[in-house]
């Protein structure tokens, strides 16, 4: 380790020697953190559109009452695979792509600590995504009855009863889990060992702190998911009864195990975003990050709390009163560190000199809309009111405010912020602003009606609905289509920026601070071969 961090200037020639294939072999064999980061981000963008197309088909079916386009079985497959794709193949790889690209640049390291593991971690993703979606294709040829139809939650015994799509999904989740754990190990090792001399943990860029907590959460909770789905697999094929009351098992055990992973997963998706938002706010307010320590401690507090609140996802399953009270209050407690984060974000903007380029717009949009997610989350924690919200469209709206406005808009913030650094070109600011406003307006048009649908009593995951829900569903579908189509602007903007455009300076943004902005844009293939000194 120390031989890397104190690595003398004369040795860097050996890095340039060796095998440099071109074309596809370059990407297959690369161990360069920038290449791997690019691959993660590209994969994520593709899967974002795959998952988006699935849900547009669902929204089209829900445009009017009655079954128009598909059978209920296929509807159930689409909603579950949409969620799995968006979570595991779009959001998580996007965050890992950011980490690969930015953490070494930000902490002054020449690469990730474990480059070969890094390569393997990425190349596990495409096979996993294929496994997840293959049953759709197989069903067309009369093999099996399609993909997993239980929703992304795999709840037993429905998943014990299901077809081979479930087995494909279990295997896929195993592979995705291995990939994520390897990525996490790599990030932890890199942050602990490869920081530039003088960069103490409390001088670490806050983005790296967000990812560090995410990495620990992944290592703590993914094995539990892997265990749960393995138990499901043995229940399905080898006659065990973990989740079957007739054999002494309990279906609710599955829900506990699943959400022990599932709840921290929300923070796994959000912490990298929470880490990058302060950088963006600070840059465009031309003012240092407010409350760095308070934010870091809040990240840690949220990380700890996130693993002890899982049962608020199953409050209607008949838990005893003491458990209900405990999970209600522990869930509400998360609002305290979260409020500290909101306070610090707004205080970072306060008395700055703000300009509103696209990344700043997305960051502000993120804060407002994620605020709605946080506040509705607070009332969802309440057991009595939750009896009405639970399993309803209110919950669907809530978690899309958390994961689309909080997760995906956060990722878009990062992409617009760092794209000039990665490509050396400026993206089109006009297109970026169009993309922002279309996204924010159509997102709310899609999901505000869903809050009302939930309150009025529409359950989630139904392919057809009573007539009193018709109007809001129609509005929601129109919103979803505008939202989906607007994302093409994003893809075009990114593509055009990769191909060319106005040259970006090294610093890119007037107010940008940090090691990554000391390098030229784009940074050389091998950067920080001589580690910088941090004062």
């Amino acid at each position: 380790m120390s031989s890397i961090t104190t690595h003398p200037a004369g040795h860097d020639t050996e890095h340039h020697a060796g095998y440099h294939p071109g074309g596809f072999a370059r990407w297959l064999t690369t161990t360069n953190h920038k290449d791997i980061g690019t691959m993660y981000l590209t994969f994520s963008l593709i899967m974002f559109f795959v998952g988006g197309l699935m849900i547009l088909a669902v929204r089209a079916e829900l445009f009017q009452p009655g079954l128009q386009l598909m059978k209920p079985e296929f509807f159930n497959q689409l909603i579950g695979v949409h969620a799995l794709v968006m979570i595991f193949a779009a959001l998580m790889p996007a965050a890992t792509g950011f980490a690969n690209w930015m953490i070494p640049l930000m902490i002054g390291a020449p690469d990730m600590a474990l480059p070969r593991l890094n390569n393997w971690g990425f190349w596990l993703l495409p096979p996993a995504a294929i496994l997840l979606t293959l049953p759709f294709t197989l069903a067309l040829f009369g093999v099996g009855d399609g993909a997993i139809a239980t929703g992304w939650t795999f709840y037993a015994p429905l998943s014990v009863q299901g077809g081979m799509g479930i087995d494909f999904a279990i295997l896929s989740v195993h592979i995705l889990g291995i990939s994520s754990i390897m990525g996490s190990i790599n990030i932890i090792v890199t942050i602990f060992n490869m920081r530039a001399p003088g960069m103490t943990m409390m001088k670490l860029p806050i983005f790296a702190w967000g990812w560090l907590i995410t990495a620990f959460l992944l290592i703590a909770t993914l094995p539990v998911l892997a265990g749960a789905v393995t138990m499901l697999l043995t229940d399905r094929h080898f006659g065990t009864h973990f989740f079957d009351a007739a054999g002494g098992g309990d279906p609710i055990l599955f829900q506990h195990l699943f959400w022990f992973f599932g709840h921290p997963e929300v923070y796994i998706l959000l912490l990298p975003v929470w880490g990058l938002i302060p950088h963006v706010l600070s840059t465009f307010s031309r003012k240092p990050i407010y409350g760095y320590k308070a934010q870091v401690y809040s990240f840690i507090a949220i990380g700890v709390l996130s693993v002890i609140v899982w049962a608020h996802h199953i409050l209607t399953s008949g838990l005893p009163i003491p458990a209900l009270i405990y999970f209600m209050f522990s869930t509400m407690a998360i609002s305290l560190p979260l409020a500290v984060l909101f306070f610090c974000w707004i205080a970072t903007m306060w008395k700055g000199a703000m300009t509103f380029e696209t990344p700043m717009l997305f960051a502000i949009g993120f804060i407002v809309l994620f605020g709605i997610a946080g506040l509705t989350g607070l009332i969802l924690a309440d057991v009595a009111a939750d009896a009405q919200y639970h399993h309803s469209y209110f919950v669907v709206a809530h978690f899309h405010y958390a994961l689309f406005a909080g997760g995906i808009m956060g990722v878009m913030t990062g992409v617009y912020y760092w794209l000039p650094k990665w490509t050396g070109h400026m993206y089109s600011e006009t297109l970026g602003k169009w993309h922002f406003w279309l996204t924010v307006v159509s997102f709310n048009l899609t999901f505000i009606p869903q809050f009302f649908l939930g309150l009025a009593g529409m359950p989630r995951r139904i392919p057809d609905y009573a007539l009193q829900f018709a109007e809001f569903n129609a509005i929601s579908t129109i919103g979803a289509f505008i939202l989906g189509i607007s994302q093409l602007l994003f893809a075009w903007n990114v593509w055009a920026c990769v191909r060319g455009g106005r040259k970006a300076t090294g610093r890119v943004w007037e107010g940008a601070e940090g090691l990554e902005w000391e390098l030229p844009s784009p940074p050389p293939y091998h950067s920080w071969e001589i580690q910088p000194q941090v004062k």
Partner: protein
Amino acid sequence: MTSVTLESPTMNNMAGDVVVWLKKAVCLLTPFILPGIANAAYNFNFPEPVTPVARETLHVHNEFMLIITILFVVVFAIMIYSMIKHRKSVGHQPTKFTGPSGGLQWFWALVPFAILLFIDFILMGIPAVNALVDMEDTKTRADMVLKVTGMQWKWQYEYPEAGVKFISTLSTPREQISNAEAKGKHYLLEVDNPVVLPVGKKVRILLTSTDVIHTWWVPQFGVKRDAIPGFLRETWVKIEKPGTYRGQCAELCGKDHGFMPVVVHAVTEPEYLAWLEEKKVQAKAAAGGADRTWSSDELMTKGQEVYEKQCAVCHQPNGLGMPPAFPALSGSPIVKGPLLAKDGKILKDSHVDRVLNGKAGTAMQAFRNTLSDVELAAVITYERNSFGNRQGDMIQPAQIKALR
């Protein structure tokens, strides 16, 4: 877009309920976006509560919505103020502070924290615990018990004290779902046998399931509880107002999850007792039929009726099923197999065995507890002699009774 004006559960307008009006203001914009639906009914809050629990839940919900709306407005008003005042284009010079310094700033930094602590654990926490304790009090002074069993994709209701039980399935015609017919007023929220409960009585509801997890939900009761196979869960209702209340299964339970509604008729006690008597007479008549010998035609007619209600959802009205999940009955080796063993007992994995005992790990459920002797005999006979199956044999209700 449907232009039908719908009967909607009346919106609960608590006087001065700011939240509802705020939301309404937002949604008043929608007619401009979609002029065609300007006359349609919109619900912006829970439907009218008819039980003490639902009323308390609505109260808690309204209070919380008010709190979070205020939090939202205050916090983002501060942010928007900053966005207007502290911008580069108006020449604002950035300051350099990175945290609170001095007593006053620490005070301002800690005030929001303290307010939130108070809101979470006192203002929201105490009413929430009170409502919760009340909601979970299923045992005190319960007047009667209703047992609800979820099964794919219908509900069974049982009145253990009266010995009455029956199955409640969706009655919306398939033609309406496939858009071949105009949709009725209660599209997807109507059943053949609604569950009847007396008003003003505390009903303890026990829930379980025979296959996967279902969730029994009637929004106007403020009750939602999972029905879990192999376990009993409980909840309670005390309906205050006669009427018909509609809800749905709320947990994804397979292909027809969207098609298993809950319909409750709340009536006065004398009406309830009269209904219960009638049900008992019906049950006795049905059981009585088991002792006589049925003709082939009678069994086929009855069998078709049962098949369409219980079996056609999966095995399809034409008996072709939806393989591989739901096999065809037409030409099925199981249906074409022998009816009973030589000694008159059930043959393992035979047609009778499947219908009575189901198949573990699949959606094929055991019908022995949900169908009567007559219904079982009729539907087995019907399946063996329809969809191109010509077994020519039949089974009598009395035989089923003996096999149980």
